[in-house]
């Protein structure tokens, strides 16, 4: 297991009789940008929720940095160095943009002054430095996504789980976010990335896992995935041939 940052070992998640995630295995290496794709209802977000401690797994193991984390609370997982963003952004609306990021920074410091300095750095990294005093709730969606990134980065994570960080954004906004993600990887952060937009995923990911109906359908490099007939069928439906 040495070198694996995150290891998903035969993870199952059932909701009553509903199988949301079924016997999924994969490993993420350090400093990879790892894509998790699949059609709606494939179990991507459920798997994220299991990894970050929001859902208990039905069976299986999740190992992060040599530590079994599938019995840990979300805040413990975060303090171990795994941070996440949300598909539906969750800004702390009545706090300012700067204060939002400060809340993240308090994960690694008790001093408000240090937290503020860290927060300002992260805001600059995503280009939100001008919006520091604005209430977070007043930002448009594109900037809220950037705020989410700045806020999780302020927790000083080793690994970042991004849940459709480009969802609902236009082409230019998506490009800016992808650029930020590349920069984060250069800072040494490992990234796992849920995305619908195949173009975004194939342009940025080193390795991709495809989920379909809770099961792992395929795993490989972007080239392998885009030429895999099973993946094409899952995305476009059985009757199409791409």
């Amino acid at each position, binding site marked *: 297991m040495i070198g694996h940052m995150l290891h998903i070992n035969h993870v199952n998640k059932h909701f009553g009789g509903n199988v949301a995630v079924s016997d999924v295995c994969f490993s993420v290496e350090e400093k990879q940008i790892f894509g998790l794709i699949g059609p709606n209802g494939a179990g991507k977000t459920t798997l994220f929720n299991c990894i*970050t*401690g*929001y859902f208990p797994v039905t069976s299986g193991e999740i190992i992060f940095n040599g530590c079994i984390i599938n019995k840990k*609370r*979300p*805040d*413990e997982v*975060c*303090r171990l160095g795994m*941070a*996440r963003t*949300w598909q539906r952004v*969750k*800004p*702390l*609306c*009545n*706090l300012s943009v700067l*204060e939002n990021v*400060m*809340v*993240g920074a*308090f*994960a690694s410091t*008790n001093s*408000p002054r240090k*937290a503020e300095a860290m927060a300002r750095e992260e805001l600059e990294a995503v280009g939100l430095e001008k919006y520091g005093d604005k209430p977070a709730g007043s930002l448009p969606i594109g900037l809220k996504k950037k705020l989410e990134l700045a*806020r*999780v980065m302020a*927790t000083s994570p080793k690994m970042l789980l991004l849940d459709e960080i480009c969802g609902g954004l236009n082409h230019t906004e998506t490009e800016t976010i992808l650029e930020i993600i590349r920069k984060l990887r250069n800072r040494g952060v490992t990234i796992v990335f849920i995305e619908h937009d195949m173009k975004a995923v194939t342009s940025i990911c080193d390795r991709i896992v495809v989920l379909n109906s809770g099961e792992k359908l395929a795993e490989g490099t972007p080239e392998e995935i885009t030429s895999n007939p099973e993946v094409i069928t899952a995305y476009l439906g059985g009757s199409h041939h791409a």
Partner: protein
Amino acid sequence: MIKQSIISVVLLIIAIALPLVTGQNPYITGILISVLMMATLASAWNIVGGYAGQFSFGHAAYFGSGAYTTMIMISVFNSNPLLGMVLGIVVACLIALVTGSIVFRLRGHYFALASIAVAEIVRLTVLNLEFTGGAQGILLTDVTFFSLDLNSKNPFYYGMLLTLALTLAITAWFHKSKTGYYLQAIREDQDAAASLGINIAFYKNKSLLISAALTSIVGSIYAVYIRFIDTHAVLDLSLSIEIILTAIIGGVGTLWGPLLGAVLLVPLAEMLRSNILGDALFRLGVVSESSAIGMFLKDGLAHAHVLVYGIITVLCILYLPKGILGFFRRGK
């Protein structure tokens, strides 16, 4: 920030000097004590209700813990009231810990309902126990506290003022500290807060414990001040609700809001109760006491102070959803 410090110092000096002006009038001092008491209770509630966003409807339980523990310690063990106060804090914190560990798993409305349930359990327990005086309550005929003259109202005024200052100081410190940011993050979005490394249960319980301890201190001072308590006076749901209304109308989640709420509402309630408006009109000869309007003012309005209070609350919620202080801050 400097402006705020200056305002606090000026307010504190005025508050310290006030009994020198009103010292001869125990009625006025009594109202001032009520204002300070409600301001402290609302400010203490604000820590858990306003900052952490956990709408506790059970704060009467903590107030009652302080009041009952102090009264029992004085009347049964003849102890110093201060010891009763300290034990009261311990009892309130124990109730808060039990409440928190059970009730904080619930969110939103369910938390509010469960907090009522816990407070009602406390009330009914006290009502049915022997050593708490049951429905009769506890009456204290004589109490000494070092060499203070407890027949004067001034010691209680300063006791309440000290507790209020302590509560506001803690709130102000919270406002700028990690804990304050964490509590507000929990209020805004619990899941997002957890994903940022915040131990939700720990911080909720921390805020509830501090709030309960401060509330209990006020209960202790109140009990010795009035020298009579029963479950209706110190453990009733209506007390919890009055605390919440004062905080909401003043402005939750702000440092000065609950104080402002108490300064406006307590004298207003007192004015309605004592029918100052009606009396003034009678004395000026504008309205005859025996006319229809006079009858209404004397019998109707004077008894309707709760109704008027309620209408003001409804108007505030409709038009000032962030409280009076929130309304004035909107421009910023």
